[in-house]
């Protein structure tokens, strides 16, 4: 039986009308579909008997799927799997009409409750069909026209909640798209600025030296040539970093994992950094000697060299300590300086691509890619890199790498060459 659509709640008797107002209020206050339906079930039952209520929503395919279902009263003791009214729901969705059906299950002659009365209601916002709401009564009585009005009213409210939810999702998606779009625009703006700046110096100083109307003195010539040389290096570094960061992000940067003995590895890093940065006093603090990791030594060295060169740039007169320790299952490397520290508001953005603290951006050269690359490399190792910093006290970068399982809890044979970090034997 297809029921004609009558939706004027003004024709409802007083008790029903009261329930209708209570439902409208409940819907207004609750924007979570499950909570709203729980509330609606509770408010509806005194004026409208039903044993189950099921909300069906379209799936990504073509079918409908139950998104909410409650068995109430007699429904709770019945065989649930027979009371879900799926075929009524499909018919309602296909026709877009209110549909009433009864179904006789085996043994209906002796058990009244085995006759089921279904009421299928389309959920519609304007012309869009958003799903169906199905009520079921075990053993009757059939639905009266007033009860159908009430059910339609409930369905209209449920549709409203769904519509609202859909709008929120759409707004959320649009905002996410907008954010992504903005990030891409910022990325292009930053990268074109970063590439253009060294190029501008190279072009400017080269053409200055090429001027035929003036003879620059030797000191000036050397000054300009040094700038050209440094800016060419900066351009190359930027391009390398850009390639690394996009390969790391797409997972196409090949990593050569091997067993690395961390104490020897850090000794090697310290020696190299000390010869490169003559004015940087680096303390090496090896708390545990018997630790190894599966790591790509070239990439891991890139991370540590980046952290040390940051210390040189941002904490020029500070002391730096490179330490090695373990925590359960993990190798812990820390790069600590007693420099000026990083303001708390910048710490959470530090590993973001192209992030540079505004106060540093004009004073210190950098691309804002270094720490981003560090995090990507450490992530590719299954590890974690974090920062801890207090303004005026200093900054510590913590790197946690998974300890090699085979080596965990094993000592190192004494005769092993302590400097050969790439061929450790467990």
């Amino acid at each position, binding site marked *: 039986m297809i029921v004609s659509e009558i939706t004027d709640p003004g024709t409802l008797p007083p008790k029903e009308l009261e329930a209708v107002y209570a439902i409208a209020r409940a819907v207004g206050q609750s924007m979570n579909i499950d909570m709203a339906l729980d509330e609606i079930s509770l408010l509806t039952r005194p004026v409208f008997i039903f044993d189950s209520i099921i909300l069906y929503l379209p799936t990504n395919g073509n079918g409908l799927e139950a998104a909410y279902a409650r068995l109430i009263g007699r429904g709770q003791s019945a065989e649930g799997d027979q009371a879900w009214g799926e075929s009524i729901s499909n018919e309602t969705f296909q026709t877009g009409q209110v549909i009433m059906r009864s179904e006789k299950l085996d043994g209906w002659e002796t058990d009244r409750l085995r006759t089921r009365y279904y009421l299928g209601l389309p959920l519609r916002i304007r012309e869009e069909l958003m799903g169906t709401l199905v009520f079921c009564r075990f053993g009757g009585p059939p639905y009266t026209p007033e009860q159908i009005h009430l059910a339609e009213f409930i369905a209209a409210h449920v549709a409203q909640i769904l519509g609202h939810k859909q709008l929120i999702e759409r707004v959320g998606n649009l905002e996410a798209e907008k954010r992504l779009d903005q990030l891409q625009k910022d990325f292009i703006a930053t990268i*074109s600025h970063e590439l253009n700046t060294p190029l501008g110096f190279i072009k400017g100083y080269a*053409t200055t030296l090429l001027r035929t109307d003036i003879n620059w003195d030797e000191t000036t010539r050397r000054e300009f040539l040094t700038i050209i040389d440094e800016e060419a290096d900066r351009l190359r570094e930027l391009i390398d970093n850009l390639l690394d960061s996009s390969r790391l992000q797409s997972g196409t940067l090949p990593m050569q994992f091997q067993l690395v003995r961390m104490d020897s590895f850090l000794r090697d890093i310290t020696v190299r950094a000390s010869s490169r940065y003559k004015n940087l006093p680096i303390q090496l603090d090896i708390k545990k000697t018997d630790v190894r990791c599966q790591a790509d030594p070239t990439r891991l060295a890139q991370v540590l060299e980046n952290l040390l060169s940051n210390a040189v740039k941002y904490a020029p007169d500070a002391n730096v300590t490179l330490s090695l320790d373990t925590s359960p299952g993990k190798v812990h490397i820390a790069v600590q300086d007693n420099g000026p520290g990083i303001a708390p508001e910048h710490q959470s953005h530090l590993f973001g691509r192209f992030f540079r603290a505004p106060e540093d*951006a*004009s004073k210190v050269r950098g691309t804002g890619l270094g720490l981003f690359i560090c995090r990507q490399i450490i992530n590719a190792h299954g590890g974690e890199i974090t920062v801890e910093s207090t303004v005026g006290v200093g900054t510590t970068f913590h790197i946690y790498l998974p300890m090699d399982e085979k080596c965990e809890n094993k000592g190192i044979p004494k005769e092993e060459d302590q400097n050969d970090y790439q061929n450790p034997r467990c």
Partner: protein
Amino acid sequence: MTTKILVVDDEPRYIRLMEANLISEGYQVLKATNGQEAVEMVAEHRPNLVLLDIMMPVLDGFGACERIREFSNVPIIVVTAKGEERDRVRGLDLGADDYIVKPFSATELLARVRSVLRRAQVSGSVFQQTIFKHGNLTIDFARAEVFRDEKMVFLSATEYRLLLQLARNLGQVLPSEQLLVDVWGPEYHEDKEILWVSISRLRQKLEDDPRNPIHIVTRPGLGYILPPLQE
């Protein structure tokens, strides 16, 4: 007299590049590293030309150009990495005389400097007025500050722009519609009420007796005027 050129850029290496080339041509070079500093340097040192970068901290080149034009017609060449048409148009609309896009060659820079200086010589000397006085009212165009009886008055950006329009056109009646277009923009040309609100607030802040204003005077049916005062 040597020609003074103010070079404004936040990258020390650009400043050095322009400085070296300009000095080699006999110009005197002044330096600033942000827009705010540039505005102050123009007011204080009255350069013959400004080479102005766009992307700078504190106040960017567009902002600096706009502020400089409030009190000076010094030639400005915008030197920018932003070579897109809308950026070039924006710079020129804000009162820049020419632009040069980074990366540039040293010879091109010097040629543009010569060309703009030549044009400026033809069109007459640099006009600059940084301080405007009207009775007990003083406007410092370079610092965008307003004083009443030597005490600083805080004006909103809109109020300041409105006052600036009247001061620049001293003795001229400005129709409401023109003020709305100049201060708020063309889409506001009929919104007389917002003009009335701002005029009233300006009078509260600037006039000794807002009911009988001497600075911002209404000419019924015509508009508003900052009348010439007989000292």
